[in-house]
């Protein structure tokens, strides 16, 4: 207890939970309610955001490097395992708190407009509030188990919201896929937790991190295994190779959900986890390299797929995977680069939420237009769009801002955060050349990012309109309740870089200094890095040039006149087809993992073990055995009282015989 507003931290998740309870009750009792649901759903988030700001201000005023930990009650007191439900307020969790509640509030407001006509309105907001509750649990928890509850909870909400329109089998399947892929990751998280408890005897962040230097041998097998298992959890939750395939399918959910869960907050949980455990990763150099390497590979791989996708949301989904890869490169680098990763996490939350919400506006408009003309075209396919800039000027402008930001055009937010990562990575390249490769991959990714984002913008908003005349008359800008959040996010994407203007531009690098207490213990374990000012300027130059090449290249290479609507488009050929089909990864997984497991389950587990052994031998066998014993003993039941008396007496005699001996 600090006696300041920091003590109110419990109120933020409690408000979200209250929103879930109220909206959930309304969803069950009066599913048609709209106004009350909107007020509750958005209100609790704004309240949580206000509390977040108050907590943040008070925490800044405390001028403390040490985290403020609140232990509320004992949760699992078993022998030496003592787990309390507790929250930890420190530099990292306050940043995450603000991002989650801030971006969350904007997306809630957007949802009011986007979901207005949906019959599951109350249910939607109940899930969304529940998600925020679990997300806050995840970022605020003061121990691995509390964090894990949040981790599982956001997975559950993700599942519920991906399959929000569950009457469509595709959507329900996408939800299941996300859930199962996440389970694989969660298994890693749990194993890591067991091993951490085994080695340090605790699961509280504070205790674990203070015991880690003595409990583990730096670079030893135990710490490497723990961190790799933790990272397995991250690959599931944050959609990295090899578990990324669920995220593009997760676009089956409502678009604001994609913005909130599958771009801004939940998928960054893995980045948060690595940042939180940066000390452990710093003690295991191999794991750090694996994290950075997988991140870099994922960034490039997803970017290539994004090049040839036609579904506007899928492009953004692969872009999200790619940008998450960037963040993992940063947190895998460790030390001061943690702040670069968190910085990119925050700016990415701004511009990617903006992109998703903008695409939501577009889909909303397309959907309304198709609805007006009773057409059943795909409202998300870019081949059906084109020239929307004339009809949706606000959305177009704001999405261009986000596109420039994600492409890394100065002085937008993405430029600073991406450049921060590249600088840190190349700085590590001097002692460890592997990082030069990661940096190189990052630069290529930056080029591809600029290209496919420009492609998305051009196909959607520019060139001739491909919707058809009837629909064209019904294309309008979304209502103000949807554009207002976009506007705020646009401002944040523009100015988000101010959070962390590096010293190179005589900025104060606020976020980097702010997060210093988090990464302080790990900096000492990592090799000393330094980059000459000239090299830094050169890197900035390369990054800007790459972005420019990407944007201009897309502008010059793509011919907007030759695009035809989706229903008459020819199939791709050659390499484009491989990219269009996502490198056939889903098919490979299906052939290598899914089908053998299904075969094993059906032929061995079901038909043999379950039906033959369990049902046949054990279940029916028990019944048959009972019947046989009953049949054999049937003659005892004569119905003659005299016989019963005799048998009874035999029993008495036996008892007496026991008494005698």
């Amino acid at each position, binding site marked *: 207890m600090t006696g300041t507003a920091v003590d109110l931290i419990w109120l933020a998740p409690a408000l979200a939970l209250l929103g879930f309870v109220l909206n959930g009750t309304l969803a069950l009792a009066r599913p048609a309610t709209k106004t009350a649901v909107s007020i509750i759903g958005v209100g609790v988030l704004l309240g949580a955001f206000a509390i977040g700001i108050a907590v943040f201000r008070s925490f800044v005023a405390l001028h403390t490097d040490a985290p403020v930990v609140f232990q509320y009650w004992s949760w699992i007191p078993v022998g030496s395992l003592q787990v309390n439900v507790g929250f930890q307020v420190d530099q990292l969790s306050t940043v995450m708190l603000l991002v989650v509640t801030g971006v969350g509030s904007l997306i809630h407001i957007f949802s009011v407009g986007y979901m207005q006509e949906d019959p599951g309105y109350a249910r939607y907001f109940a899930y969304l509030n529940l998600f925020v509750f679990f997300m806050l649990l995840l970022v605020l928890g003061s121990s691995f188990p509390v964090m894990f509850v949040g981790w599982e909870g956001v997975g559950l909400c993700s599942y519920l919201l991906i399959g929000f329109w569950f009457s469509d089998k595709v959507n329900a399947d996408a939800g299941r896929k996300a859930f199962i892929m996440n389970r694989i990751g969660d298994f890693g998280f749990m194993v890591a937790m067991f091993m951490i408890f085994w080695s340090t005897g605790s699961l509280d962040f504070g205790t674990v991190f203070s015991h880690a230097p003595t409990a583990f041998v730096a670079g030893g097998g135990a710490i490497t295994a723990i961190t790799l298992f933790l990272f397995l959890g991250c690959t599931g939750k944050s959609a990295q190779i090899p578990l990324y395939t669920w995220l593009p399918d997760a676009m089956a959910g409502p678009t604001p959900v994609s913005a909130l869960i599958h771009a801004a907050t939940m998928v960054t949980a893995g980045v948060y986890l690595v940042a939180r455990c940066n000390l452990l990763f710093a003690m295991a150099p191999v794991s750090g390299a694996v994290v950075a390497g997988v991140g870099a590979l994922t960034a490039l791989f997803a970017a290539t797929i994004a090049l040839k996708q036609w579904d506007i949301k899928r492009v953004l989904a692969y872009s999200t995977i790619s940008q998450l890869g960037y963040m993992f490169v940063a947190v895998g680098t460790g030390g001061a680069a943690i702040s670069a990763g968190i910085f990119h996490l925050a700016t990415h939350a701004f511009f990617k939420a903006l992109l998703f919400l903008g695409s939501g506006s577009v889909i909303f408009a397309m959907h309304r237009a198709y609805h007006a003309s009773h057409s059943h075209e795909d409202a998300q396919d870019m081949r059906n769009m084109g020239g929307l800039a004339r009809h949706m000027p606000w959305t177009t402008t704001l999405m261009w801002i986000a596109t420039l930001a994600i492409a890394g055009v100065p002085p937008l937010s993405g430029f600073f955060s991406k450049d921060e990562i590249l600088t840190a990575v190349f700085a590590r390249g001097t002692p460890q050349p592997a990082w030069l490769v990661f940096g190189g991959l990052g630069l290529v990714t930056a080029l591809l990012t600029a290209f496919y984002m420009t492609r998305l913008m051009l196909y959607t908003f520019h060139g001739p309109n491909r919707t058809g005349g009837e629909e064209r008359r019904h294309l309008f800008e979304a209502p103000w309740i949807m554009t207002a959040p976009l506007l705020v996010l646009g401002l944040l994407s523009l100015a988000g870089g101010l959070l962390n203007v590096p010293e190179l531009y005589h900025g104060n690098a606020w976020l980097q200094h702010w997060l210093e207490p988090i990464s302080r213990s790990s900096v000492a374990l990592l090799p000393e890095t330094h980059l000459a000012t000239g090299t830094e300027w050169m890197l900035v130059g390369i990054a800007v040039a790459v972005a420019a090449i990407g944007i201009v290249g897309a502008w010059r290479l793509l011919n907007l006149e030759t695009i035809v609507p989706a229903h008459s488009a020819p199939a791709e050929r050659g390499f484009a087809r491989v990219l269009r089909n996502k490198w056939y990864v889903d098919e490979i997984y299906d052939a290598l993992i899914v089908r053998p497991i299904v075969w094993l389950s059906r032929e061995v587990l079901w038909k043999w073990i379950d039906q033959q052994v369990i049902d046949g031998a054990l279940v029916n066998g028990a019944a048959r055995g009972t019947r046989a014993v009953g049949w054999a003993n049937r003659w005892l039941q004569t119905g003659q009282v*005299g016989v019963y008396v*005799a048998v009874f*007496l*035999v029993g*008495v*005699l036996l008892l*007496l*015989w026991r*008494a*005698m001996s």
Partner: protein
Amino acid sequence: MTLTFFWIFGVIAMGSALLCITRRNPVVCALWLVVTLFALAAMYVMLDAQFIAALQVLVYAGAIMVLFLFVIMLLNLGRPGPTDIKGPVGLLLAAVLAGTLLFQLRVLGGAQALPPSAIQLPPGSLAALQARQGIVGAVAGPLFETYLVPFEIASVLLLAAIVGAVVLAKRKL
């Protein structure tokens, strides 16, 4: 002297009990049982339980056995009919089981089963108690003090038995 009389009445009780279970006619059985009960009453007197002996004659030999005879007469079973004693197999079974039981009871009721002398009252203390409180008073004292609740419950049980017997025996209520 007392021991001799005790054995005489014991033999009477056992003999008449044997006749009771072997006579064919239920009325004869009942009468032999009455003889057993009387012999037991005599043994109770020798065991310093005069009040119980009186109850035995009044309640058992009087009331209960009259009830038996009454039912036998009511059902008109007094005539000698076909025997109800089971055949040789039943006889053998009964003999084996009863023999085993007797053996076991004799072992269990033998010398080592007697209460240890440490907790035994000195000889004649029961007679002294009866001399102090009177024969009925010696039983009535604990009955209405220590065992008051069981006594009341027994009265409820008897009431329930009366009601039950009426319900069962009456043709139409």
